């Protein structure tokens, strides 16, 4: 099977190029396995990977134009030649390895942790099954970055727009019955950039390897913000 891989070493190359590799594939093979095989024949090739089962989110790449996790993408489903690019819009460190600093900065900015002002309870924080249910579809995010790097609004304003991944987490804590910083979280998202650069393009929902829906979460934040401000 033929693979066309994005290659770029900023230290030695003037500009990126695509390199072709022919790899023998086996039944049930995932793209990550193919990339590992490529690395075994060309050790100058770099890509990130770790768990190999869609849990760590390290091997997010752009596969035939769509972001996804290499480890859970069967090569049998891909059209030849399989074009693999780094995640779009991020500075390339080398080959498929990109700099995710801005992505993490935006994640950090939504304060993705419980904020409680009351004294800590003696036992655990209690939550009804219904309240807990609200967090389904939000907490499962593995921060692979497929969504934010597929979002045109994030391409144009990665420094100001929080991006779908961070906004999904913002909503995860706004929706959490135990969190007591909802007002601050909502105020922080005001203004034309942080939340409202989202134009409901829905690339994020389309590419999420965990099947989550950041667009819906962003819509929920807008509704809550509307109630909060009126």
């Amino acid at each position, binding site marked *: 099977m033929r693979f066309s891989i994005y290659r770029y070493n900023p230290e030695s190359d003037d500009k990126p190029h695509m390199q072709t590799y022919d790899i023998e594939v086996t039944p049930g093979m995932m793209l990550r396995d193919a990339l590992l095989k490529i690395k075994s024949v060309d050790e100058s090739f770099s890509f990130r990977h770790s768990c190999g089962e869609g849990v760590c989110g390290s091997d997010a790449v752009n596969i035939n134009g769509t972001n996804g996790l290499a480890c859970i993408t069967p090569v049998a489903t891909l059209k030849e030649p399989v074009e693999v690019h780094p995640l779009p819009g991020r500075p390339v460190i080398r080959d498929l390895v990109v700099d995710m600093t801005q992505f993490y900065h935006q994640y950090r900015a939504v304060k993705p942790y419980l904020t409680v002002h009351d004294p800590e309870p003696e036992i655990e924080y209690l939550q009804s099954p219904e309240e807990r249910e609200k967090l389904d579809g939000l907490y499962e995010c593995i921060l692979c970055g497929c969504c934010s790097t597929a979002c045109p609004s994030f391409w*144009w*304003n990665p420094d100001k727009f929080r991006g779908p991944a961070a906004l999904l987490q913002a909503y995860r804590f706004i929706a959490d019955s135990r969190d007591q910083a909802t007002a601050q979280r909502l105020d922080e998202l005001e203004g*034309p950039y942080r939340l*409202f*650069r989202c134009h409901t393009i829905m690339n994020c929902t389309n590419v999420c390897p965990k099947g989550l829906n950041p667009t819906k979460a962003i819509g929920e934040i807008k509704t809550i*913000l*509307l109630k909060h401000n009126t």
Partner: protein
Amino acid sequence: MKSWLLQRFTAVYMALFFVYFIAALLIAPSESYEEWQVWMRSTPMALATTLFFFALLGHAWVGLRDVFLDYIKPFVLRLVLLNLLAIGMIVMALWVVRILLTGGA
């Protein structure tokens, strides 16, 4: 937030007005220019039409401002473009008012 709301409200109003306008044209088309003038100059219709054009301008303002915020990075250029847009829209608003007041005469 405010601009996002404005965009939603104007969109809904324009959609409703559009449906009504098309329906009115299909169900009871004006037989003559005079009849058309009477219809368009009746107070509710004149108000609704004026509101429609202001909604259109408001909607377009938010939309184009979004495009500028997304794509025009140099601050000065963006400021110039937004000002030109604002001036253009004010001119269009005044023009619409003039047309509606004078009946295009």
